[in-house]
């Protein structure tokens, strides 16, 4: 399935990435090249094959829902590009 320019724009927005207008055509072409290549998987008969989500045979284990490493606010904010009053700060969201 070939994808068009609009789809490239939509996927870029879903990915929160900006593609310059003069790069859209190249991106579309490259995308289609890659999709064509992965579509060789359609040659494989996968009727009655269960998808493999994880190679681990073990199931996830349950644990008590309790705080194990609390009170880390300072450490968590240490790398924040902007923080104030113990919070991350962001550009204004609500007018």
């Amino acid at each position, binding site marked *: 399935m070939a994808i068009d320019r609009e789809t490239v724009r939509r996927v870029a927005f879903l990915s929160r990435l900006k593609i310059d207008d003069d790069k859209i055509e190249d991106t579309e072409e490259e995308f289609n090249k890659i999709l064509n290549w992965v579509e060789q*998987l359609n040659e494989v008969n996968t009727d009655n094959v269960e998808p493999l989500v994880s190679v681990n045979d073990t199931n996830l284990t349950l644990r008590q829902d309790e705080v194990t490493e609390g009170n880390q606010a300072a450490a968590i904010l240490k790398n924040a590009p902007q923080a104030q009053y113990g919070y991350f700060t962001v550009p204004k969201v609500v007018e």
Partner: protein
Amino acid sequence: MTKLTELTIAQARDALKKKEFSAVELTKAYIDEMNDKRKYNAYVLETPDVALEQAKKSDEKYAHGTDGALEGIPLGIKDLYCTKDIRTTACSHILDGFEPQYESTVTSKLLNAGAGFLGKLNMDEFAMGGSNETSYYGPVVNPWSKDVPLVAGGSSGGSAAAVAANMCAAATGTDTGGSIRQPSAFCGITGIKPTYGRCSRYGIVAFASSLDQAGPMCKDVRDCAIMLNVMSGYDPKDSTSAKVEVPNFESFLNQDIKGLKIGIPSEYRPEGLNAEIAAFWDKGIEMLKARGAEIVNISLPHTKYALPTYYIIAPAEASSNLARYDGLRYGLRVNGEHLDNMYINSRTAGFGTEVKRRIMIGTYVLSAGYYDAYYLKAQKVRRLIRQDFLNAFEKCDIILTPTSPVTAFPIGDESMLENPINMWLNDVFTVSVNLAGLPAMSLPIGLSHDGLPLGLQLIGKAFDEGTIFKTASALEQDAAFRKGLK
């Protein structure tokens, strides 16, 4: 006399125990080597003060006889591992200046065993690449380069180059589609990707979580065994880490391989396979045969579908894992008028071309209407690829293949840059192993006509690294690669 930096972990540890030299002296020797060899661009951050501080403590431990398994051994750490208070960027602009406030499980195990950290090693951005050329800090130069600078392979290119050029005793790597094994082959060193779940992924920057595994990259097979023993083990902080016993991997070295069944997959010898690589593969087969191993022809019929499967699953997982880089909590922020613009500006400025490409492919294959056609289809083929290995292992104990269809190529190679798929094809022999979750090692077997290292790959059953170590130690002795270096 052998230079201190040429010693293996095992040799250095024995000499440290006998007080032939101190951990501080050993560490200083590596620091000198790092200073002399900056041209390889292997380190993106050098931490000599940290390493010397650790070495002083190690010398005290040796004096008191309380030394650990890696006491006083200076290591290089791939920049994908979170190291407390030491900058960790995954070689991406988007993690500029990030100093983790916690230590990854694997690096804390190494520290607890007495190892010292010389610095953070260069790699492809977020481990996405096979040549170290996608690093924000520029490509690593392969120490085997002659006239033209060659790639060190990727994504763990800095790790492979640093070990090959004696800029650390050994290094950590990670492997999602071949990122330990291919650079090991390109740089003439030994590296093992253990079984999925063997090493904790906690604190390792995530790329494709169902495929990522940590592993050691070393000067020889014994060092891989020593280091993997320290790195392995169940960790409640990683829900995919396996609750299985960790055997003493060193105990498998030098065991008799008589009667061992070695599987040779016909699909790994496609028409047009580089004749030299095929010849060294045959040489490896002959070496094992001469030691009484039995050669068994096997088939892994879905091999040709492994790469397209990988290039759906890995980008899908990456697009999800990399959603966290939004300029909000850490790393690079590029402001914008609104919140969404801040996300878009930060991510557009912070990610490189290959990472953006994979995020977009991943976003597409997971998006409504395409999920079944691509992602679900790939997961089904993934099961068939794993089943191929399960079937093969009913006939053999271990599988021998080449590691890579090529040797190290020049930095900036036109054909690789022109079409991303050309670069991806280099992982053709390594990627199935990640999809199946199996352990595999690359070890050097010889040099090509133009003097570049070639590697062979040993693939084992799940949690049977032991048979890999047993077989690898036999091949290593017969190939005598390191002896030929002088």
